[in-house]
């Protein structure tokens, strides 16, 4: 053991200090980004809560006129959209995830800090776009799930749904970037010695969540793109009279939507798995099974989406399959609940507000899970779905499960984020008001559902016998409202009090508690070496926190910080702030706005600024790599370079993106009511351009080889050649598209044409982006900035380029070649 080191200088500035407003606007510090997510989420939580209260006021009595039907429909739509996209995900991922991941894995920031900030600003732009209807055009009013074909312009004219589509596309982009960032961070930036089985549970849950985000959001993106094309460009992806089906929307939406609820639930599970051990002063029971169950839940969540569609008439085989898979997913979930209780069992409990909320979550979430088992049984679900019973179910899991967890997490991690404690007395009031209000509001909904009350109805008949329970629920909602006021007051009081929180107020088990409260910008003066699970507990008490005897040091203060603290932190070089995340997000917002209000110039300017900002961010990232001690060679805990993991993650999500487009094409190609079909395709011509695209992959390989051996001349030739071949391919597509147009097949001609053009068109956009990327690298090469040490940059574009080629091979086979096969 080393001698006690000299302490660091008295005042290390925390991440919150310095920089002024510009500092916050240009920050790429994950902790500052987290705090910005927090502030916006708290605002939208109040807004969504207000919408809920208004709903409950309207439902106080039958034939009530507190809200008009139009306002009511907008409010329940916005309540759902706001809570899911602007509150829960931003809190779990944007706030808690962002703040804690680097601190828990022993890193100084996330893998891509500029992308991280861009995710936040995109989320802000999305929040504004979703609410701009209030100023012009009306708020979205077709439900948070926006079922086609109600959402077609014919049935819902005006701007409301347009705001919704664009807002969600921007929000989805923000979330996908976050998922990519988190997955890469967790794989690549764990401190030395932190194997997967030594990670905190919250990190496990975020790893699974990030994968879910990457493979679920593209389905929503495609569904929204189809709706956008229908509303703006006259296609008929969801119009039955053209041979299409509105059920396509439901499949795409729920392929996203069910993983989405696990994107919300899994991080909550991860947090509970840390909070309960902390206040039981005992390690988590069954850590390996808890990790595996997270993975299993994530995997299974992708196979249950049809249980939202039991009433649509999918047929008994599909109904049975989805019923069985939906029941299966209950098993790993049950394992978690039992393990949490077993963690409490035999513990030395500290009954704090955080622990109260965690314990409350166990019971409320169990109730939600039990009603979920009923929903899994398709025949029962046919009575319960679209009634207040399912409203009860999902509020028990999302509020009783996720929000209760978020509240526990607030009380637990608030000292680390702000350096203050949330008041315990106020906290207990907050807790009990929440429990009473929540159950009073939502338990009777089970009964109302069983008594036949449908959901999404702005009023109900006096003779239905539903009045009294509705009134009970409204009273409960007001009690909940008071609970939230107490919560906001607790926050206000804690921020305005002088009392400072210690670094480790709860005698915590994970690494974030080893830093100051709040931490300095660089997180750790020295990256710790990890020797086991519950890394901080091990560093403090010196013995294995993960099995056998735990230190039941009943309430004793933690021991001295681990030895080996360096004398200075001057060697730490954090990346500089950047204006590009904010600028690029505003530019994306401009594209969306221009599309809706028909100002094409704004679209073009927005697109140009977006591209330039992204290129700017790329150069900033590269320059930072040069300045600091060579992070490109920094050991990655995943064994693969950080940026490569990022590109692979992106490719993973792109697989789902193209799979959705290709599946739609396959389903729709022979359902056209009239007009040309696959016979119009020119296979010989397209074979030539396919060959050229494949050859471009060869040139790409040659470009990488040239870069790796430092051959400047051939590097430029092959890079330029790859881009040129890409352009030739695109030229062939332009020729093909215009010739189809002249032969009478435009975008909106029929189902075959629209599926074809959207699929092949989006692929072409991907090729174009690749050409742009290659051009940027070519310019860098010609300026002498793409030497051997930067071969990875070429490898990355190569990965992307080859992927786009592989997708083309699939498209060429399924779209073109299959037509040559009779009966295909």
């Amino acid at each position: 053991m080393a001698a006690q080191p000299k302490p660091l200088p008295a005042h290390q500035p925390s991440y919150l200090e310095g920089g002024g407003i510009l500092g916050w606007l240009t920050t790429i510090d994950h902790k500052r980004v987290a705090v910005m997510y927090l502030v916006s989420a708290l605002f939208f939580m109040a807004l969504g809560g207000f919408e809920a209260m208004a709903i409950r006021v309207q439902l106080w009595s039958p034939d009530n006129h507190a809200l008009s039907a139009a306002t009511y429909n907008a409010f329940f739509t916005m309540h759902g959209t706001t809570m899911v996209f602007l509150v829960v995900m931003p809190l779990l991922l944007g706030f808690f995830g962002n703040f804690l991941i680097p601190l828990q894995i022993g890193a100084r920031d996330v893998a891509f800090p500029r992308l991280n900030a861009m995710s936040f600003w995109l989320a802000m732009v999305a929040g504004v776009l979703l609410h701009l209807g209030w100023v012009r055009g009306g708020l979205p009013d077709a439900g948070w799930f926006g079922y086609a074909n109600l959402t077609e312009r014919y049935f819902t004219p005006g701007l409301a749904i347009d705001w919704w589509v664009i807002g969600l596309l921007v929000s989805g982009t923000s979330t996908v970037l976050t998922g990519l960032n988190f997955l890469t961070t967790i794989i690549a930036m764990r401190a030395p010695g932190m194997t997967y089985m030594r990670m905190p549970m919250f990190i496990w849950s975020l790893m699974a969540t990030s994968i879910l985000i990457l493979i679920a959001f593209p389905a929503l993106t495609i569904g929204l793109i189809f709706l956008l094309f229908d509303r703006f460009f006259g296609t008929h992806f969801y119009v039955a009279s053209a041979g299409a089906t509105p059920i396509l929307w439901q499949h795409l939406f729920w392929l996203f939507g069910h993983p989405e609820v696990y994107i919300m639930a899994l991080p909550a599970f991860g947090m509970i798995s840390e909070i309960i051990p902390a206040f039981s002063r005992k390690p988590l029971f069954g850590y390996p099974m808890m990790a595996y169950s997270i993975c299993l839940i994530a995997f299974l969540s992708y196979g249950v989406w049809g249980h939202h569609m039991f009433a649509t008439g999918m047929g008994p085989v599909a109904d049975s399959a989805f019923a069985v898979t939906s029941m299966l997913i209950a098993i790993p979930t049950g394992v978690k609940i039992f393990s949490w209780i077993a963690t409490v069992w035999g513990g030395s409990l500290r009954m704090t507000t955080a622990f109260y909320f965690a314990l409350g979550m166990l019971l409320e979430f169990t109730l939600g899970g039990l009603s979920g088992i009923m929903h899994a049984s398709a025949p029962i679900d046919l009575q319960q779905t679209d009634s207040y019973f399912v409203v009860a179910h999902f509020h028990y899991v999302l509020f009783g499960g996720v929000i209760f967890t978020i509240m526990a997490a607030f009380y637990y991690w608030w000292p680390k984020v702000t350096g203050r404690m949330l008041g315990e007395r106020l906290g207990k009031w907050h807790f009990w008001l929440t429990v009473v209000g929540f159950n009073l509001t939502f338990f009777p909904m089970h009964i109302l559902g069983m008594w036949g009350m449908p959901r999404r109805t702005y009023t109900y008949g006096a003779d239905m016998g539903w009045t009294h329970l509705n009134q009970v629920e409204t009273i409960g909602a007001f009690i909940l409202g008071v609970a939230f006021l107490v919560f906001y007051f607790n926050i206000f009081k804690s921020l305005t009090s002088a009392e400072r929180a210690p670094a480790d107020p709860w005698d915590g088990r994970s690494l974030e508690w080893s830093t100051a409260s709040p931490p300095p910008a660089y997180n750790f003066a020295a990256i710790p070496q990890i020797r086991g699970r519950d890394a901080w507990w091990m560093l403090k008490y010196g013995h294995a926190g993960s099995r056998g005897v735990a230190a039941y040091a009943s309430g004793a203060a933690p021991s001295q910080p681990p030895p080996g603290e360096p004398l200075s932190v001057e060697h730490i070089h954090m990346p500089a702030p950047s204006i590009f995340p904010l600028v690029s997000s505003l530019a994306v917002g401009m594209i969306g706005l221009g599309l809706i209000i028909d100002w094409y110039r704004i679209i073009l300017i927005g697109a140009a600024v977006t591209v330039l900002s992204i290129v700017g961010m790329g150069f900033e990232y590269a320059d930072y790599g040069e300045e600091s001690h060579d992070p490109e060679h920094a050991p990655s805990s995943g064994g693969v370079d950080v940026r490569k993991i990022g590109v692979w993650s992106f490719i993973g999500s792109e697989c789902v993106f193209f799979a959705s487009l290709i599946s739609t094409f396959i389903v729709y190609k022979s359902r056209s009511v009239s007009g040309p079909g696959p016979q119009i395709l020119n296979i010989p011509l397209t074979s030539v351009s396919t060959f050229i695209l494949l050859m471009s992959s060869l040139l790409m390989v040659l470009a990488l080889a040239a870069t790796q051996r430092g051959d400047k001349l051939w590097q430029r030739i092959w890079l330029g050649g790859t881009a040129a071949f890409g352009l030739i391919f695109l030229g062939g597509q332009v020729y093909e598209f215009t010739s189809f147009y002249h032969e009478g097949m435009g975008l909106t001609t029929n189902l075959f044409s629209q599926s074809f053009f959207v699929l092949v068109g989006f692929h072409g956009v991907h090729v174009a982006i690749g050409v742009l990327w290659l051009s940027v690298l070519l310019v860098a090469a010609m300026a002498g900035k793409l030497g051997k040490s930067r071969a990875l940059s070429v490898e990355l574009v190569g990965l992307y380029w080859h992927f786009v080629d592989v997708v083309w091979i699939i498209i060429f086979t399924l779209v073109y070649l299959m037509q040559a096969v009779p009966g295909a």
Partner: protein
Amino acid sequence: MTTLAPKSDLAQWINSLFIEVTAWDAIILAIVVSAFILAVFVFSSRVGEAAPASAATSDLGLEIAWTLGPTLVLVMISVPTIRTIFRSQPAVAPAGALEIKVVAHQWWWEFGYPDGAKTSNELHIPANRPIRLSLESGDIIHSFWVPQLGGKRDVVPGQINELTFIATVPGMYPGQCAEFCGLSHANMRFRVFVDSPDEFAKWDRAQLAGPAAIPATDLLASNGAKLFANSPCTTCHMIQGISKGYIGPDLTHFASRTTLAAGVLKNTPENVAKWIGKPQETKPGANMPALLLPGPKMDALVAYLESLK
């Protein structure tokens, strides 16, 4: 409109399944709550007290038990589930079934019988005979739900969904659209009358007959008939022998219905006047234009409509 008082074979199967699952849920809840109470209040200490004995972080037996146990329960639930799924969705109509075509519109229901009878918003069916509803949409997705007669089935444009059941107890059972369909989704209600076979036959014959003759003494209704025949109402509403519109409900036997505006208002003269005068007040977004007639004309029209038994 409860799901807990099944009045058909389908509703009965679902209710039995529901009771089974509720029983299992109750057992699981009891186990979880007991374990919770024991863990929090009995087998733990509070910080500052002497530590309790158990410090286990794994127990293979326990982990196997709480994985296998729920699995077995779920298997036991899935077997009757799958059986009920297949039983309740026969591929073809059962022998002797009465096949009724249901068309859902924003925001009303159209019912058509094999013998050509047509009505709206109030469905009559005979008890103890298989009923096969074929559900079609005139515009967007709706959902047909009569809780006492079974689970709901969505009505989807471009496909025909079926709902098959046998109503076992005569009575009146309310139903409501159960898929959000726009402004007046809450006002798209309907009623199902399960009649004895004789009553049903009588009702069916009455529906097939032409409109009731207006008594010669009823001048008000006669005037109303003339008003109707020359009004824009004929564009959308059919009265057999008088008008041919089919965009809105068939009114030939309007007065035989207990409610109007798709189950929202009781069928009384005041309500008819209220509905015709300002439909959007009862049903926001209703496609029916307001017809603000002066008092005497409205009385005449209402009298005519109420004569159409």
